[in-house]
């Protein structure tokens, strides 16, 4: 699949200084400064932070709070762009060591699409990673930057080796989607340590461990069905490796680092070309006449991308990311960030205006739930504020995929209610643990 660049450079770009979970960056530029493409404009102040780079040439207009696709206002650097492709000098890294790689990842601002800075996933403090996974099950993240599928496969393989080196893990795997024949074919041609790869399907109880032994290799490519959702990491890890991730933990607690295709590609570019992460590929969805994949600079406002497309009708809703879990935007001034994978546009007619009715116990949500919860009960308990009972019914396992709300014939906002209950439980739980200042020592290392 070919991706297109925008025809014009946006008039101004808005680059948020916090495009990751963690601590916001410290701005390195002042109002009126001239910046070049790839110039570092925000420096991370702690380990849980990732640098931010300019994606255009131009003059800094302001450093102020600006709208962000997550719905809040975030301190951003606003740059007035000039028509120039002048970049700072990119220095490729030559055979970097593990420490260098971690520094490169943080310095190049590589962030997972789900928010965590990649180096904190690969090298979490106090935890040891022994397996690196690249989740390539959503192919719209893949396309665009590669001339041929083979190039994609070989670059991914290189990136996986780099990620493994950075994390110190001995084993690595790439997970592709079962019905994505292009990718599977491409990976079948790649050679690892002189042996041709075979894409292994994850069937039944056969998980990665089986294939590591079966193929006698430390690197495997496996295929599985696509999982959609917001909090899918733990579910994904369990599906792929069979390792159970406890509630309130993430895959790094069981020694698994899950990376996306985008961050793997960004690392490949950072090491081989010295390019920081300032461009990304997004796709457009909805009733628009647009190239499927667009190569955009991070910080480009949505309206510049939308104006490149011919939209049939009046725009009723702008959604950052997909229709199931994406966040609806109140303005088209929001920029593309490192976490944006897609922009969805809905017409006025497509915007839903349903009224919730009573639950008719049709159990469509129960059938739709991938983690065998009972959304029909959970939404009632959440609405009545019976959060403890929600917790007894394992509400924390919800991966927020939204299939229950999608399927509901009574149009109840099940996902919203479940999130409300989950938030309430998390808050109550944080209140219950003693604060750092208190001298009370917990029996275990925090947590349950």
């Amino acid at each position, binding site marked *: 699949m070919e991706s297109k660049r925008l025809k014009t450079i946006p008039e101004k770009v808005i680059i948020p200084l916090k495009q990751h979970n963690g601590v916001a960056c410290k701005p390195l530029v002042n109002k009126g400064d001239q910046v070049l493409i790839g110039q570092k404009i925000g420096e991370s102040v702690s380990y849980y932070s990732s640098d931010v780079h300019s994606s255009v040439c131009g003059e800094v207009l302001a450093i102020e709070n600006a709208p962000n696709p997550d719905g809040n206002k975030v301190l951003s650097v606003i740059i007035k762009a000039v028509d120039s492709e002048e970049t700072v000098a990119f220095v490729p890294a030559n055979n970097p060591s593990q420490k260098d790689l971690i520094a490169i990842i943080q310095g190049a601002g590589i962030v997972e699409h789900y928010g965590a800075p990649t180096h904190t996933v690969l090298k979490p403090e106090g935890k040891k990673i022994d397996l690196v996974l690249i989740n390539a099950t959503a192919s719209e993240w893949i396309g665009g930057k590669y001339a041929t599928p083979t190039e994609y496969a070989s670059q991914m393989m290189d990136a996986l080796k780099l990620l493994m080196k950075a994390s110190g893990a001995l084993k690595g795997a790439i997970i592709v989607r079962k019905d994505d024949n292009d990718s599977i074919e491409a990976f079948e041609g790649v050679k690892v340590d002189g042996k041709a790869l075979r894409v292994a399907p994850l069937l039944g109880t056969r998980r990665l*461990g089986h294939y590591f032994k079966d193929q006698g290799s430390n690197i495997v490519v496996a295929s599985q069905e696509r999982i959609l959702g917001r909090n899918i990491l733990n579910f994904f890890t369990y599906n792929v490796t069979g390792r159970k991730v406890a509630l309130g933990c993430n895959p790094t607690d069981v020694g698994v680092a899950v990376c996306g295709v985008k961050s793997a590609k960004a690392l490949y570019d950072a090491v081989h070309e010295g390019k920081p992460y300032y461009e990304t590929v997004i796709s457009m969805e909805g009733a628009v006449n647009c190239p499927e994949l667009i190569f955009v600079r991070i910080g480009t406002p949505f309206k510049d991308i939308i104006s490149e497309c011919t939209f049939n009708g009046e725009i009723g809703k702008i959604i950052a990311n997909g229709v199931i879990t994406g966040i609806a935007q109140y303005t088209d001034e929001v920029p593309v960030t490192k976490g944006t994978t897609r922009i969805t546009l809905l017409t006025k007619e497509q915007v839903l205006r349903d009224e919730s009715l009573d639950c008719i116990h049709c159990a469509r949500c129960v059938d739709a739930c991938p983690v065998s919860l009972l959304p029909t009960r959970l939404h009632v308990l959440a609405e009545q504020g019976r959060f403890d009972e929600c917790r007894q019914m394992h509400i924390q396992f919800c991966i927020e995929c939204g299939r229950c*709300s999608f399927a509901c*014939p009574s149009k109840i906002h099940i996902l919203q209610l479940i999130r409300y209950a989950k938030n309430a439980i998390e808050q109550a739980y944080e209140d219950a643990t003693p604060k750092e200042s208190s001298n009370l020592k917990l029996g275990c290392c925090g947590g349950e």
Partner: protein
Amino acid sequence: MDYTISAPPHIKSKFSFSSINRAKILALIPVSLASVYFFGMPALGIILAASLAAVATEYSIQRIFKKKVTIMDGHAALIGLMFALLTPPEAPIWIPIFGAFFAIAIGKHAFGGIGSYIFNPVLVAWVFVRSAWGDFMTPASIPSLGQLSDLVLENGAGLLVDVSPILLLSGVYLVYKKYIEWRVPLVFALTVFFFNQTVAFLSAVIGLIQEGVLNPLMYLSTMFIFLEVTDELSYVMVGIVFFGILFLATDTPTTPVTKNGRLIYGFACGLLVSIYGYFGNYVDGTIYGIFLANAIAAYIETKTLPAMFGHESLLERSYKRIMKRIPPSLKYEVISDE
């Protein structure tokens, strides 16, 4: 420019409560027309009277109690139509009117409206009317499958719904289109079918034992009974049983929500209907059987709550325990997981 903001998901499936009700009403229209063709004007009068009475009752109840009027979702009309189909054509016109009123007023709204009732309103009304005015509600004849043409037009039909079993298979189309969930009807139908075959099989075996037969081949040959269509089955292949399987038992508020619960509920429906039908008749049997199964639906649901995700079930645990005991030399070469 104004943009709508709302919580995700931003698209929803095309199914809505009213579309499900409308689909069910549409699926029942062929059999209603067949009953009008077979019984003439009284049938038309009963169907219209019951449907209109049900809608009028719902409207007045919601107006009196100052609630939102929901007659347009089609649920009241569906209940009225379903009650009409369970009425014999000889019944005086006030029977379907009262039945529809009772179904909506007591069966549905006294229990708290849609989603809250524990017994199917149609069955509540039918059981009440049948107990109060048994003479009017007793069908003139109990249908049974004599020849195959009875599947298309049943000459011994006692209730409106009995006229044509084959037209009720429109419910199967609803299952295919996912308006109705498949678990309950499938298990219900299988149970009803195999109950009679099993009874016939067991009675054949007991007969052989009583004759003192020792030849094991004779016992084995009784297995062929499962392939034969027994006499009892001809009483099952009637309209009301089909109606019960596809429309009465699948009423969602009276069905457990858990996946396993729905399988068990379907089995319970089938077993109760079969027992009633075997010793009595399948007309009363279907209705009382499903009515009793409604009573245990909530119990089934609370007993089949799904375990924590990733939790091993009893079956998986015992399988693993057995596999551990088997010496490795006997196993196929399976490379174990981490």
